[in-house]
């Protein structure tokens, strides 16, 4: 949808559904969804690596679609459903992807991880048992400098198989 013309310096009321909760906030018209999530809603789990749509670190789900939140003006999102990494935990339990990533070495520095997790979630929501090639394609816009991607791909496969390794004495 096309945002209305916004006067500089005037804040605009923005209703969103974030991680299942209705929120309403006053935002600066120039702000991206990324900035509103991190700065106005204190959801700092979503990261930034370039703010130009190049690295994938800021990916969130908007109406279920992986979206680069650094390229989207917040005002383009009134009423839309946004899922960030903070929204993956449900009933106090990690999402199977989160367990698999933690168990299988898919998060090293952890900085690209939130963007990759939500992108992988969108894939698994649509295709519960994707091939390795499909996983590679789905994550090809998310850069990771630490892992070489293989443990990430294996973790997505493990989550798809819903058999994350049992671990010892760890909070879940």
């Amino acid at each position: 949808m096309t945002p209305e013309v916004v006067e500089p310096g005037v804040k605009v009321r923005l209703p969103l559904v974030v991680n299942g909760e209705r929120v309403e906030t006053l935002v600066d018209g120039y702000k991206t969804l990324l900035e509103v999530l991190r700065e106005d809603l204190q959801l700092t789990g979503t990261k930034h690596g370039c703010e130009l749509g190049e690295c994938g670190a800021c990916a969130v789900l908007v109406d279920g679609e992986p979206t680069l939140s650094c390229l989207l003006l917040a005002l383009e999102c009134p009423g839309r459903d946004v899922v960030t990494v903070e929204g993956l935990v449900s009933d106090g339990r990690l999402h199977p992807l989160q367990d698999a990533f933690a168990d299988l070495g898919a998060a090293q520095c952890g900085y690209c991880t939130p963007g990759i997790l939500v992108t992988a979630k969108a894939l698994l929501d649509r295709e519960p048992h994707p091939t390795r090639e499909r996983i590679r394609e789905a994550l090809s816009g998310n850069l990771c400098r630490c892992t070489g991607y293989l443990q990430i791909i294996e973790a997505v496969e493990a989550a798809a198989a819903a058999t994350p390794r049992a671990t010892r004495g760890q909070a879940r």
Partner: protein
Amino acid sequence: MSDGSLKVIGEPRRRVDGRAKVTGQTRFADDIVLPRMLHCKLLRSALPHARIVSVDTTKAEALDGVHLVLTGDAFPIAYGVLPVSHDEHALCRDKVRFVGDPVAAVIAVDEATASEATRLVHVEYEPLRTFAEPEDSLAHPEPRIHEYGDEGNIHKLVSLQFGDIDAALAAADHVFDDTFFFEGSTHLPIEQHAAVGLKDPDGKLVVYSSTQTPHYVHRALAKSLAMPAAHIRVIATPNGGGFGGKSDPFNHEIVVAKAALLLDRPVKICLTREEVFYCHRGRHPVLMRFRTGVRKDGTLAGVDLQTLLDGGAYGSYGVASTFYTGALQTVTYDIPRYRFRGCRVFTNKPPCGPKRGHGTPQARFGQEVQLDKIAERLDVDPADFRLRIVAPPDSLTANYLRIGTIALADCIHSVVRQSDWKNRFRKLPRGRGVGLACSSYLSGAGLPINWNDLPHSGVQLKLDRSGGVTAFSGATEIGQGSDDVLVACVAEVLGIDPFDVRAVTGDTDLTPVDLGSYSSRVTLMMGNAAVEAATRARDLIAGAVSRRLDVPPERLTFAERRVFDASNPSTGVSFQEAVCIAEAQFGTLGTTGSYTPPKPAAQFKGGGVGPSPAYSYTAAVVEVDVDPETGWIRVPRVWIAHDIGRALNPTLVRGQVEGSVYMGLGEALMEEQAFRRLPPRLSNALVHKFPSILEYKSPTTLDMPEIFTDLIEHPDAAGPFGAKEVGQGPLLPIMPAVANAVYDAVGVRIDEVPITPQKIVKALQAKAAGRDARYGPAAFPQIRWPEPLLVAPPWEGGDGRASNEPSRKKRKAEAGIEGTAGVRA
């Protein structure tokens, strides 16, 4: 490796910080938000080399929302990571030395206002000659980029000779003379550098920063702000990737510290991606020439190496980088005589420094490609050739590096077997090829940057009646898993679960000094300190429990959260009870552990770079598909074997190996920190060719090959539970293995990285035209090398000293108190 007596070590485990990372709760520097926090932006030079005539901040200061504008006047004291090159000011004072050098800082209510205000700062410059290439810097000593350095625009000249290399080459049956070039590349951590400065309630300075080296930031802040170090607290936030790029103390850290002190409000800065490219401190572009003498029997007679490093605009770690281009060749292969001459020049580009492998990947590339050429000429299999010349274990090299365990031969055998090398090398159809290369790396530098006798790593443990153990260490979590190593070592010794141990790390107020997460030093050094601290805690507890249970302490076992009689396991107490017993007996419980590396054998100037408590080794086979028409190159498979000593957490070790292969492929195939001149009608400035992630190509999921990793575990006595490094070594063989595989595939030598389709096509065209089937640098320039220090190798009666060097005592007096063992100037 399973070892019956070990419960935690060697088990693939979820890392202790795994949950935080997958929930987005790891708090990176830019995630810190504090009440009354202001934001900082830097005005950076748009000229590569210019004198600053004047800086007018009046308009910027007048802008609504601006709280402070700083210029170089606020920072009279220079700093730098190496004591021999304190050549930076937080904001430039007299001149700028590269596009991106910061000139002014604006602190404002938000980033947008700060950015707007930087554009209102007026700087008048007087442009100076731009030095774009090392050849310019060699040819023109004036104007000098810096007023220090060995001569003109040469920062550092190194010349070392171990035995009569000229005689060795003259007597050799073959002498191979090859020139190679390794292009610069940058770390590209996905997290941009960020820092927050604040004054704590009692008036002391606190700086949070995404730094790999809080101790060096601490030192730089104390010096440049002329404050007692005891009044400064540096907290290293977990780094969103480092790879060496967050190892220098940075100007932006000092700027936000100063601003916070002046304003008494928290001040944050987060660099843009473009700024991160200009901060750099990455891989030095290196031109190199290897002359290698080979005997008829296929052994090496000697190596004569020259390197020329493009250092960029500041010293950074560059003196160490220069030495490192020549340090580790002898640790890998048996080289009876050796000469190394290295030269680092200043140019008007972002400063180069340490990137994964620090100074060693460039020369490793040259050496391993040359060995491939030698094997070809001698008509021996390159794997067999290397097996013949692998350095011996428990030995001293020609340049006085002490080798402990070396499982390089096992690594070679492993990748040869796994890759079916014997049936594939020189046997695949045209367009497909395999290449092999090897490498070695340090498990931490044997000497500190700041010359002193203090430990390199300290660990403190706090235990109390809760049964909980807190481990304090200055080491910094940069994704490599240092918190996990710390916790695993403590848990193993105390027989508890890693999750029972809390890690408090990288905080100069709370944690004992660790020199930082660089040079692959943390696992070995912090690990040893952790084992020492935990062993002392175990001994204390065992003493108390022994009295209570009337069991001799040596019979007490710590396992499964219990302390019990090994010969009668039902006699025992829970770990928590054991701690209570000890606390009741001794009072508050705490122990410490420290690690200081053994003294190196080298006694000559420059011998401080290269020694390490243990060296890791790697062998790799890379398979390539090359389209002979387009030069398009694809890597379907990599086999890699790494001599790790012992894998403390195999999941993380494998991650380091695969991450190294990934980064190595990036350097081999696509990554370039390259520069261009803007058109003269603009400014003719020397700028980064593509300071964006989109155009600085790095491998994606679609580019990654299958990787077959084999961990060779022969515990090394120097490491905790026998562990050696893994974070850097496995990167090193990848680039030369790709080059060697390209030759196997299409018969052309690409003697430089990155190996791009264009270069392959050019080499194929040269081959078709009957010219040298090669793409690479034509020649190594003439450099006026100083007379080398002459050091006789151990087997020629040497004692590690140079015969033509002034005495140590005299040199020390000349150097003053603050020398650098590693890089004595």
